[in-house]
């Protein structure tokens, strides 16, 4: 991404994003891939929440095919999605602090993220682009060590999470940099189509996990974190609190993974009936929509990914006008822009 900024001294007059530097036209690519194959491409969209992207596609195909997903698969998917969310927020936290100018948190965040990646690697076989979800469930059963490792991670994470507050949140320079920076009112957040923490920081309740529960989210207790301040600090706090909520969700599920199949019996060749299917999931960045138009063939006729970053980015210009150049990086940090997600 390339931001063209018009400046008056240090004050921003206008921000103009130029996109498309890593546009791969995933939507067009998916039109020539079958319903089993196209899921792996979506890992490359928002690579930090690859699991959740895959999950969205799998859910959309399941909705079209009316496949009943076994409970075990649902729970596994939910745990994996929440682990991904924590990993994504960890990376965001490190990168955010780095944008603001503190280097150390980046490495401290990666210490915990590495643990999640190890868990992922053990079960899914990859660290970033897992391709673990398939229509009807998950690809392979959990690794025997999975539960133990996740529990170890949760204990470790709970020990370390207060360090984040010590290092960054409580820092007076950090708070001054974030407070009242990049203000986004509730009306604007809705109008700009923001979702995820960016919108929840402005007081918009938009957590898809709560509003339109999918997979095992209706079986767990968690809070939708909402802050009303609308500034960068609010968006920051939401992500920090969301990590705690994710841990809470995993804690509820990890001991109660039901026995059974990890994958529903599906036909070898998937054919979606003629029609249009739309699923929404909550990725680490916000609402991801998968819109499949099917003509009854083995490949989608048209597929559209409504990526959260794209809409969140459109609010950047509005937020940045009139603030300082240094604030821009803080805003971009709190919007948590993942460029492949915007470009697709």
């Amino acid at each position, binding site marked *: 991404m390339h931001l063209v900024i018009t400046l008056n001294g240090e004050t921003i007059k206008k921000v103009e994003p130029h996109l498309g530097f890593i546009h791969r036209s995933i939507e067009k690519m998916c039109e020539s891939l079958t319903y089993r194959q196209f899921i792996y491409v979506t890992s490359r969209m928002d690579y930090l929440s690859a699991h959740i992207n895959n999950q969205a596609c799998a859910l959309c195909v399941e909705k079209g095919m009316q496949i009943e997903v076994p409970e075990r698969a649902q729970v596994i998917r939910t745990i994996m999605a929440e682990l991904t969310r924590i990993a994504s927020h960890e990376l965001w936290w490190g990168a955010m602090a780095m944008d603001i100018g503190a280097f150390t948190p980046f490495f401290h965040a990666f210490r915990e993220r590495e643990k999640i990646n190890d868990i992922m690697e053990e079960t899914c076989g*990859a660290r970033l682009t897992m391709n673990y979800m398939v229509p009807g469930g998950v690809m392979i059963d959990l690794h025997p060590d999975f539960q133990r490792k996740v529990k170890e991670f949760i204990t470790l994470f709970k020990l370390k999470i207060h360090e984040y507050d010590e290092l960054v949140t409580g820092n007076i320079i950090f708070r001054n940099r974030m407070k009242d920076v990049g203000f986004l009112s509730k009306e604007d957040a809705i109008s700009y189509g923001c979702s995820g923490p960016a919108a929840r920081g402005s007081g918009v309740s938009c957590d898809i996990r709560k509003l339109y529960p999918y997979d095992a989210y209706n079986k767990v207790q968690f809070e939708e974190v909402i802050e009303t301040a609308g500034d960068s600090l609010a968006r920051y706090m939401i992500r920090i609190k969301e990590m705690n909520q994710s841990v809470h969700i995993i804690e509820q599920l990890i001991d109660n993974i039901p026995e059974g199949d990890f994958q529903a019996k599906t036909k070898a060749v998937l054919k979606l009936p003629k029609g249009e299917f739309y699923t929404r999931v909550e990725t680490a960045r916000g609402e991801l929509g998968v819109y499949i138009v099917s003509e009854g063939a083995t490949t989608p006729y048209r597929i559209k990914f409504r990526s959260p970053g794209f809409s969140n980015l459109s609010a950047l210009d509005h937020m940045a006008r009139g603030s300082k150049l240094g604030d821009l990086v803080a805003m971009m940090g709190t919007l948590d822009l993942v460029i492949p997600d915007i470009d697709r």
Partner: protein
Amino acid sequence: MVGMRRTGYYFTHHKEIITQEYPDNRDTLKLPERFKGEVVMPHDENNEHRCTGCTACELACPNGTIKVVTKFDITPEGKKKKAIDKLVYHLELCTMCNLCIIACPSDAIVMAQTFEHSVFDRAELTKILNNPGSKIMDGVE
């Protein structure tokens, strides 16, 4: 100030260092058995593999990574039988999505745990998975 205490703590506590000294720890580095490094075809001691040449992997692959070149073997009974001549694998196109392994009905191909794939010539990335002169294992249909 609290942050300085935290960084000071890590400055003096070296045992929490998490760096992996990569090229030096090759001997001890253990990747999980599910790690998706590249597609290989295991052969047993008689130079036999399990691939029937059904092209299920070729169809499953989203990137055209696998090309199955088939030939016809003459079985002892005198019947013609389809078998693979070459199973060409383009590592440079592979995204390690694991779909071919899932699709394979006879478990002929698996993911190897190698990850050091860099070579000087791109042509070296195109691999032929079956060993020369290898045969299909008995009993695999």
